[in-house]
């Protein structure tokens, strides 16, 4: 599903509480969220439970989505990630990290579309191995030790390669 289509669907949910639009969004994003949680070693039951919570948030907070500045995929990813953080933080106090993120989202002046060229430059500059390291370390949140074991390279090499990859990225985001 391209971004334009997803944005149209979310707008229909926000405006008319359109359940057909929501079912299309569900079919597109729920399996990805489920896969994301399963990749983080959550049980299938828990993965589905959290996925349900994310989709409920999308349904309830569709009005909060600002299509002028955010891509649907990035918005839904941040909601899914924050649910996971909330889940791992057992002792919740007055505010959940998701609320904090909502707040940052509302006040955030940066724009997904304006930074697209920077993201493309970074994506072009990183080779496959570097992309893989970023994915394993930051997206899948694997420890350096586990990455070293999976890629069968020394721990020190993992650390220095991640450092070099981040330095390469940082040239574009100063």
């Amino acid at each position, binding site marked *: 599903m391209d971004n334009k289509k997803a944005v149209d669907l979310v707008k229909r949910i926000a405006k008319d509480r359109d359940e057909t639009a929501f079912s299309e969004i569900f079919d597109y994003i729920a399996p990805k969220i489920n896969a994301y949680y399963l990749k983080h070693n959550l049980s299938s039951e828990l993965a*589905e439970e959290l996925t349900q919570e994310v989709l409920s948030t999308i349904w309830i907070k569709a009005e909060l989505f600002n299509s002028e500045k955010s891509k649907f995929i990035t918005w839904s990813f941040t909601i899914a990630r924050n649910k996971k953080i909330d889940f791992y933080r057992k002792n919740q106090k007055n505010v959940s990290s998701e609320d*904090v993120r909502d707040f*940052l989202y509302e006040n955030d002046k940066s724009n997904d579309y304006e*930074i697209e060229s920077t993201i493309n430059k970074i994506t072009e500059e990183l080779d496959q191995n570097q992309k893989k390291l970023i994915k394993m370390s930051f*997206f899948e949140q694997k420890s350096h030790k586990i990455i070293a074991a999976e890629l069968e390279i020394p721990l020190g090499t993992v650390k220095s390669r991640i450092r070099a990859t981040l330095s390469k990225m*940082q040239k574009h985001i100063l």
Partner: protein
Amino acid sequence: MNTTTQKNDLIFSYSSGNLGEAKSLFTSMYLYLNSVASKKASIFDNLLAKNFEDLEGIKLKKIKFSDCIKSKKPSNENVKSKNNPLENIIGDLKNINWKSVYKGFKEFSIPVNDKDSVKLIKMDPGTAVPLHSHNGKEYILVLDGSFCDEYGEYNKGDMQINDQKIKHNPVACNKDGCICLSITENDVVFFGKFGSLLNLFTFIKSFFK
């Protein structure tokens, strides 16, 4: 590792959800106050979201879309938070019950479930912290006013990261003083005339943490 790299590391870790509660709260305030930092976080969020987009979906076995529709008419109440991320937790900064540490220097510990401690520091105009270093890293974010040390002037939204290599002597600026959010991973080590006394005080204090 230079300071920019360390700041970026903090932002990247925030984006990936790797931070504990203390640093997470600290970073969310940094992103709230600093638009450059916020832009960097968006770049990293988008990069991670690309990985998410490429994920091969796994169909749900039990949950259907209709299970996720909790209410047909969601209320708009509570959708918008009124305060910033920190004030959402501790309330208005103006009503903090500050604890005086010494003349012109007050602090307030923020309750977090984390090994790192996070606190607010309030320094009256011209108040100085004796020359010190840190056993672990110290992160300081200026929430209001400004302070100066050997490395420069830090204003609202600026962050300073210090480690054991750095000795500094911060002074709140003369005009407004400053309020900072601070994380210390380990104890502070003081130098100079009263250094040993302050270090002894820190040592004793550690028993009451």
